[in-house]
């Protein structure tokens, strides 16, 4: 039998398209099985002379290899088809919803605090904190707000007794740090924290809110440094193309005192409801540290000077995310919270 003839014959037997593996094995046995065609051809070798045997053997081997290749090929084809069918049967509806886990979030006020902390740590600041139950001395006296000072009326205070109160500003942490540093070490700190004022809660007032205070004291820090630092802060919080402007203000612990406006990020200075058509939005108060404060806290004002600033975290968050009611921060409605994932 010639190769071409065998090939044609086997191919013809395997031409069925949806042949099962079983059928394939049956056909294969008819050719390569013990009693199959190829072994029987091999059996005939014994009837040949010694000279003819090698050439005959080679020829039958070639036929055997050819047959084996053809059956392997078909087997592979059937297997691939079977896998394809299995995979097809396992197909899922990938549009069904995934498994729901409970995923959490960070409170937006802490998110803002962390953002500010990271900026100032990058500028060489340390983070400090002080007690929320504060003494009159640290909350007022050392900040140049003596007993009869009108600024006390501006901040209605929760008192525990004549001497102890809930801090009305994080500025107390300034005094704590300066006294801790003993009037010698340079100061470069920010102090985030909760503060309390005796205001009834409404859309714009909260008896508890959050401030971040900043303080730098050394021998040569200037108002230009304050301006540059606040510009950096404004750009970090509200976008790189922001500008700031300073306006005169009054705080007992700073002199000069300023109010800081950032150029409106909503209308870019054209005027809108957010900036009340001025193009500017007030974001924080600041100033050069009042000499009385330096001296009372142990820093010689003839040698040292400093700057301080304070901002309301709620105000920053309200501006940034268009929140119009301060109570939302403390109501902790899941529908509000979950937007800050």
């Amino acid at each position, binding site marked *: 039998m010639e190769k071409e003839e065998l090939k044609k014959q086997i191919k013809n037997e395997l031409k069925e398209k949806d042949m099962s593996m079983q059928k394939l094995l049956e056909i294969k046995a008819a050719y390569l099985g013990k009693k199959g065609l190829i072994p029987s051809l091999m059996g005939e070798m014994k009837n040949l002379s010694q000279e003819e045997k090698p050439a005959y053997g080679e020829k039958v081997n070639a036929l055997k290899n050819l047959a084996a290749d053809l059956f392997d090929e078909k087997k592979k084809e059937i297997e691939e088809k079977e896998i394809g069918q299995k995979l097809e049967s396992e197909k899922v509806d990938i549009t069904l919803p995934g498994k*729901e886990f*409970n995923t959490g979030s960070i409170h937006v006020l802490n998110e803002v605090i962390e953002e500010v902390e990271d900026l100032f740590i990058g500028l060489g600041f340390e983070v400090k904190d002080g007690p929320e*139950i504060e003494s009159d001395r640290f909350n007022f006296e050392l900040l140049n707000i003596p007993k009869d000072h009108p600024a006390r009326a501006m901040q209605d205070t929760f*008192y*525990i007794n004549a001497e*102890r109160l809930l801090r009305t500003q994080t500025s107390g942490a300034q005094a704590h740090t300066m006294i801790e540093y003993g009037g010698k070490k340079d100061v470069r700190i920010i102090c985030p924290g909760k503060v309390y004022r005796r205001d009834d809660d409404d859309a714009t007032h909260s*008896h508890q809110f959050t401030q971040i205070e900043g303080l730098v004291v050394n021998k040569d820090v200037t108002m230009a*440094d304050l301006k540059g630092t606040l510009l950096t802060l404004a750009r970090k919080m509200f976008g790189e193309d922001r500008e700031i402007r300073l306006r005169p203000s009054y705080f007992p612990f700073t002199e000069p005192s300023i109010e800081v406006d950032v150029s409106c990020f909503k209308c870019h200075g054209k005027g809108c409801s957010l900036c009340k058509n001025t193009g500017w939005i007030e974001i924080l108060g600041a100033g050069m540290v009042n000499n009385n404060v330096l001296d009372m806290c142990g820093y010689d004002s003839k040698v040292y*000077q400093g700057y301080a600033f304070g901002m309301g975290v709620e105000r920053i968050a309200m501006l940034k995310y268009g929140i119009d009611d301060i109570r939302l921060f403390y109501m902790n*409605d899941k529908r509000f919270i979950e937007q800050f994932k």
Partner: protein
Amino acid sequence: MLIPLKLLKEYVDINVDDKEFVRQFSLKSAEVDSFAPFVSVKGLTIGKILKVKEHPDSNHLHITTVDTGDTVQDIVCGAPNVMEGKKVIVAKEGVSLPGGVMKKALIRGVESCGMNCSLEELGIDAKFQGYEGIYYLDDDAPIGIDPIAYLHLDDMILEIELTPNRSDLLSIIGVAHDTAAMLNTSFHLDEIKYNEKEEEADISVSTETENCRAYYSKVIKNVKIKESPSWLKGALIKMNVRPINNVVDVTNYVLMITGQPLHAFNYNAIKTKKIVVKMAEDKEKFYTLDNKERILSKDDIVITDGITPLCLGGVMGGIESEVENDTTSIFLESANFNPKNIQRTSKRLDLVSESSTRFEKGIDPLMSKYALDLAAYLLEKLASGEILKGGSCFNNLPKEDKKIEISLEKIEKVLARHYSSEEIDKVFSGLSFDFSYKDGVYQVSIPPRRSDIETYQDLIEEIVRINGYEKIASSIPASYSAGKHNDYQKFIRKLRHLLSFSLNEVITYSLVNGKEVSYFDNKEMEKVKISNPLSDERTYMRHSLLPSLLNTLKYNVYHKIEDNFIFEIGRNYTLDKEETLVSGALSGLISSTLWSGKKEEADFFYVKGLLENVFTKLSIKNYCFIYPASPLKGLHPGVSAVLLSGREPIGFIGLIHPETQKEFDVPKTFVFEINAEKLYNASHPLKTVKEISKYPSIKRDLALVVPSSLTAESLMGKIKKYGKRSLSDISIFDLYTGEKLEKDKKQLALTLTFSDMKKTLEAVEVDSYIAEILAGLLNEGITLRE
């Protein structure tokens, strides 16, 4: 403070347009709240009501025929006071009023061509009209002209918000000084001239208290009390002061212009012909102008006739000496009182007036005499008063101005900018400060109107604000040390971030009610109570965050939000200590795939596992959960545990007690509360790595039958005790309790892992270790499952 622009311009030149003026004012002087016309309505006309007819189809409407000069038109009018012959303010078709644009309209079948207006309809406070209905102008008001101009109300109003230090801006003259400096224009104050009679003022003034520091007086006879002219009424209305009569209006006007409060007495009420200023007697009674009896104290300054009080100094006049419509002679006072006394009196009696506010904040002593002269001049003009010669007075205020020195070097060191001498000269002279300059140092005399300027820092503020903050450069101070969080701050932040992977962070109020303050407090800490709380709900500083967290759950569940997983990092409070706590409240489904029917609800082991995973990430070592020695407040006694760090309790976890659940009106909730500082102390971050074995380990599973009361943890402790060093790990993979076991027994299945650093363990070695462990356990009544 309301500043009518036309009034301001009488005292200072303004050389820029309105918009620029307002911009400069807000950048250099004080915060501008608004800048707008006093009346924004344009195109109003004065008309005369020629005829009034009844409306045929209404019992309260009238048809008025109104002459506005160019036309005579009918206007349907609903005002009750409509009257023929009166002059009125007419809004014709097309005029835009606060309430809408005027249109021709049919009102019950009659065409109306506009409206006869009340002041309120123009956006002016109704108190300035004082009666219902349409506003009537003077009978001689000319028809056809602009009524707003006629009433002297055509002006722009600058409304500014003052910081407490700038009391000098509480007067038009004070604002004019600042304006002159910021615009570099001139301030002007006209000299006052009036005629004095031959007759001398015959009331002598003196004081018995230092709290009255200066007192100037005038006697004015034959005054005719009547309505003020419209320019004066207009000026007052623009500053929100209600006109009364010419005498009262003049004193109010002078107050607004100069900042100096004046008081006019009925001359005839001063029978002793002398004025003595004293401190009141304690409990002394006095009737103020508003006809109320006031009980005085030793802190109150009273103006007496030597015997009886006539006036509560700086705060309010007395009813006995009040100027009335038939008064003919008045005694005029311009005094300077100690601000502290005025502040206390006004606060104690709850009497706040334009006068007390100014005295409280400190007035310009140099204005006292000027203000008195201005008032005398105006009363001569407007009330035909005859001013008697002289007037008794005293002035015990310091005569010398305060002097402050500042070097150019200091200015530049603080502001980091070089200022030319012209720039600084301009600021000081603009503010009318006298100054000299020598060897790099300015000596500046501060006029007493600027009592806020006390130090060189205050002068630096004047320089930088008037010269302009925009001229200050922006720089970043050099830092030679790296900023950082300390390890504790880093720990807290990591804790927050880890918990926030599964839980929502909340922030709740520190102030709670008397019940919540110590609801979960097992230590019975000392309570901190607010002495002046706003409400009972916010009276105590909390000892636990959990009540607030449960209230948060309640709020959300009420809003139909069922699965709530929240945590908070916040403080507890005693008077001398504040500790940071990390607390959580978990309720509902942790995970779900609803269409497959799979869901998992939060339970004790979810909370415990969550914390354990977080602890692992925070390198918390040597901790365990134990049964509480006695039940924890607010928790289920069988489903709660104390967290120990070493031997110290640092927190707890558990299911809230059914009673707690009811009280807080929340669903089944698991909570935890841990002292964050103590948790931080239990954190031991890796310092050096441990060697790991190069050889494979061998695992063996054991199913042990143990007494029900034996905890998994103590079983593992026992196995460790009997195991050799090569027992490297134990884990529990099954718990079985049920019928196949004896009563009081449970079955725990564990995997034991053995490994050796130096060699591959042989199975026979492990078999012998297991045998030793089982032998040890058997002695304690623990058997291998058959």
